[in-house]
């Protein structure tokens, strides 16, 4: 017995399939068609395309930075040639032909700092988002699907975490567990899941209402079958759209934590660059290149993720255009 295609296809299939294929091939063909249909809709959103371009640029930067020269991060390896035309006493050096974005107070090129920082900042954002969505989805689906007692317990836990101001909690956790990139990722992941859980639970509940879930159960399908075949495919779009938005929040959170000095002292992220700049007086001496370059990167990347997330949201929840 072939699995039913559960997601609504708003438009009819474009033409008949050329030849008889196995059920698996048909399913995959359908999925590829659905994907291309999705892409043609996504392409029409200017916000979505702009966001995607931004992400591609920064993503490429982050990947390429793996192959870039790591010595540009070292404070001791700086030579006079690196910081020309400034001398060691004139650091931090404003932008010039040698260093297009200037240097920091130790003579390191801001450009390279920011390129390497991209890798860490994006990594933190992505991993934290994955943690958030995994926990949030598990909690949300279980709470929505099983209901009653587990729902109450899980949602109470989520509500409790929502009341606690996350930065205050983060400060406390950081002072307990130390300053390590994984602690930072963990803190962000573990404090952000309640929001996602709420959202996914709501979606699970509305999917559960649909008749085909009832029918499945009546046919004797086990819970696991119902969840994986019916609930998951219909909740997945919301999970993915939300995951994108959570990356944006995670990057913002990491920068705040780093700015307070709670970041990993051994890694360079955009947040730690700003923290070092600020605590070494960049504002009073007016070293705007040192402060504003990583700031610009944070803002642009978060903007990119937010725009992509919004564009996805528009496709998943299309709004009736009134007036």
């Amino acid at each position, binding site marked *: 017995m072939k699995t039913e295609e559960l997601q609504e296809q708003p438009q009819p299939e474009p033409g008949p399939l050329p030849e008889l294929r196995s059920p698996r091939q048909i399913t995959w063909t359908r999925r590829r068609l659905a994907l291309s249909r999705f892409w043609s809709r996504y392409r029409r959103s200017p916000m979505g395309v702009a966001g995607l371009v931004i992400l591609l640029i920064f993503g490429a930067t982050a990947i390429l930075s793996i192959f870039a020269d790591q010595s540009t991060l070292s404070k001791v390896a700086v030579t006079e040639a690196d910081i020309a035309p400034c001398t060691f006493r004139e650091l931090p050096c404003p932008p010039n032909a040698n260093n297009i974005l200037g240097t920091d107070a130790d003579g390191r090129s801001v450009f390279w700092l920011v390129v390497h920082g991209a890798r860490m900042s994006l990594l933190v954002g992505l991993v934290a988002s994955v943690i958030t969505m995994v926990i949030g989805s598990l909690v949300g689906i279980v709470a929505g699907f099983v209901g009653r007692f587990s729902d109450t317990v899980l949602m109470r836990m989520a509500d409790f975490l929502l009341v606690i*101001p996350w930065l205050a909690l983060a400060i406390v956790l*950081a002072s307990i567990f130390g300053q390590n990139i994984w602690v930072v990722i963990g803190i962000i992941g573990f404090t952000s899941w309640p929001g996602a859980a709420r959202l996914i639970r709501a979606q699970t509940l509305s999917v559960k209402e649909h008749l085909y879930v009832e029918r499945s159960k009546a046919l004797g399908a086990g819970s696991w079958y119902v969840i994986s075949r019916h609930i998951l495919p219909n909740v997945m779009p919301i999970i993915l759209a939300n995951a994108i938005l959570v990356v944006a929040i995670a990057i913002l959170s990491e920068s705040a934590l780093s700015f307070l000095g709670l970041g990993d002292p051994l890694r360079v992220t955009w947040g730690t660059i*700003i923290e070092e700049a600020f605590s070494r007086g960049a504002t009073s001496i007016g070293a705007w290149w040192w402060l504003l370059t990583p700031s610009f990167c*944070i803002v642009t990347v978060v903007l990119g993720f937010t725009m992509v997330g919004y564009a996805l949201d528009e496709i998943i929840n299309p709004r009736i255009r009134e007036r």
Partner: protein
Amino acid sequence: MGTQRYVLGKIFQAFLTLFFILTFNFFLFRVIPGDPVALLTKTSGVELSGEQQQQLRDDLGLLDPLPTQYVGYIADTFRGDLGVSTFVEPGEQVSTVFFRDLPKTLVLVGTSTIASVALGLVLGAYGGWRRGRALDLSAMSGSLILYSMPEFVLGILFLLLFTKYLHLFPSGGYKSVTGNATGLAYIADVLNHLFLPWITLTLAYVGEYYLVMRSSLLDVMGEEYISLARAKGLRDKLVLRHHAARNALLPTVTLIALSFGFVLGGAITVELVFSYPGIGKLSFDALRKHDFPVLQGTFLVFSLAVLVANLIADVLYGYLDPRVRSSA
């Protein structure tokens, strides 16, 4: 009366949550690895003999069984005794320090929240109502950019612009270090120092509130009672005010309340940027110096603030939406 039951119910829930927060706070700081007394001696540089250390432990109540400590903690908290600061203001009662610093943060966060909410809601309603027009497009782009900016980045931007380059505002603090202005001059001085952090916090969140209200309004605009209101002959503005905005406000209030925790987080970083001597900066100093009593106290204060904000939002929501008042 449905309303009374609703409000009382919410207050009761708030107390329950407060209790959980206190418990959480208590155990959180017991989890800290290392012996607080050893840490004290190490960082203060004072040498204490083993006997003296035990005496200190006894004084701090660390030798009592856990349940006793717990009850003592709860009782102390309700009496207003939050312990004694170790490093930030050595010897001072934590509550005294809070008395000094909390009002400054309240003024900053309170006024900026009111401003950003009011501005965000009004603009969001108009922007959504006239979707796609000049106001909406410019406000949307502005909001997206502001939303993507960390609060401290905005603060640093203003600091560079207005203080370093334009010399319009002081770089930080609460009032001028020199001079003893009184009365109006004092207020003017305080406002002068307050302005940059205030405008930073206001702008940092107005974008988010705009987007939320706008989105909520767009959802409401498709409802039939909006068509009905127009069919009755109401002017556009009245349809917006009496029907669309009143309903769009409901989910918006909930979302704003949920984001209050982030507002407090933002306040901490902004106070740091402008060296504004409020609770935020205090917690940062406590963090740097490992002053656990103060940290425990600030954690409590922040959680309490979010709790109160949520309570106010819940009560407000009950006032706005008659459906929740008619309880199950």
